[in-house]
């Protein structure tokens, strides 16, 4: 996952839900601490490879899992 995006959530409860859905759909992902330059929230966000992020976003929308935004990591 050298070129990755992170999905930020308003709450880590939604991050956990997202991980569950992504795992079920075989989208490789990793929970990481929220980068401080992206958000002041506590907790974690979900990192997904850049090549899979569009698919990941689609799965989350399909399950009505609200997220704050998606940011590409440089």
């Amino acid at each position, binding site marked *: 996952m050298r070129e990755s995006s992170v999905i930020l959530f*308003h*709450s*880590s*409860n*939604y*991050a*956990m*839900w997202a*991980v*569950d859905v992504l795992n079920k759909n075989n989208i490789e992902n990793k*929970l*990481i*601490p*929220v980068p401080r330059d992206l958000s*002041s*929230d*506590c*907790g*974690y966000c979900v990192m997904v490879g850049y090549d899979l992020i569009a698919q990941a976003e689609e799965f989350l929308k399909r399950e*009505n899992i*609200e997220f704050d935004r998606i940011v590409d990591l440089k």
Partner: protein
Amino acid sequence: MTKISRLKNNTIYFDNSATSFPKPPAVVDAVVDYMTLVGANPGRSGHRMACEAGKIVFQARKNIAEFFGVKSPMNVIFSSNATDSLNLAIKGILCQDDHVITSSMEHNSIIRPLKMLEDRGIISITVLPGDDSGIISTGELDSAKKNNTKAVIINHMSNVTGIVQPVAEIGKWCKKNNMIFILDCAQSAGIIPIDLKSDSIDMIAFAGHKGLYGPTGTGGLIISDSFDVRKMNPLKEGGTGSMSDKTVQPNFLPDMYESGTLNVAGIAGLSKGVEFLNNMPEKLKSVQLHKVTLQKYFIEKASKRIDGFKSYSASSGFGVVSFTIGGLSVSEITQRLSDDFDIMSRQGLHCSPLAHQRIGTFPEGTVRFSFSVFNTIYEVETALEALKIIRDGK
């Protein structure tokens, strides 16, 4: 099963409506595993152990949401017990001059918060007497309805007699009359299938430590997918691990109502309790069959063998039997059962004075046997022999 036998020894535990015991081994293991291997705070830090704690809590939400027919796991709000959940629902929803309909079979977990609001001049209450056993009808609801009626708040299954309210009919009536339907499932969760969507229930309060076989200190409020959460104010505000740059409470589920660190150890156990029920051969049908068998056996044999025995529960109920034995005080019976026979039962009013008034056992109350899936016919037979000895004064 080895672990269960070791925990139980020769004690007979018939107080499962208060708190179920023993717990399935997986419940105990989950609590210990969290305490010894995970231990961290869910939803705050981002390290591995915090993530593990968060996964445990999410899995529990998911298990419970599926168990009660709710699509979003976020609609499961964890609390300390059913009373805690009912206080959130009642005080979070009711406003000045609202009217509420409830029943005569309520536990104090419903009637006390309602009475407090009534005494302060905030709401008015109508308590429906129901039929001889306390079961209410839509006809009574029609008669009690007022222009300012906001909600129907009742228990699903009585903790005193085990009677079950006709939830589907009441839910349909509430939907038709545009009223909020709040159901106390402290006794029924884990025994009677509950589906918020199909029964038109807006929210249910459940206890984790009774029929769901979780630890004490667990419970929750489940909100239907269609309910607008803006209609319910939180009772407490504080740290949620979310939107930490804001000084106002988040306005989304479940964070809005879950300030402060959750009881993760308890929730870990509760999750396994729900899985235990899901893994039973025929799920809740197996639970019901077991409890009906024990209840029927106990009531039928006791009625024949013990002079003065009177049951206030139907023989076809789901494992809650209130009874008296003429000439003996209920406290004497339960004390002798405990001291002389190592049989645990509960006497008195069971925190439900209205229900005892309804069935005519106020203020003395009754003895209550409440069975779990771990009780056996052999244990019931042992209790019958003990009651006969107590009755005959030996």
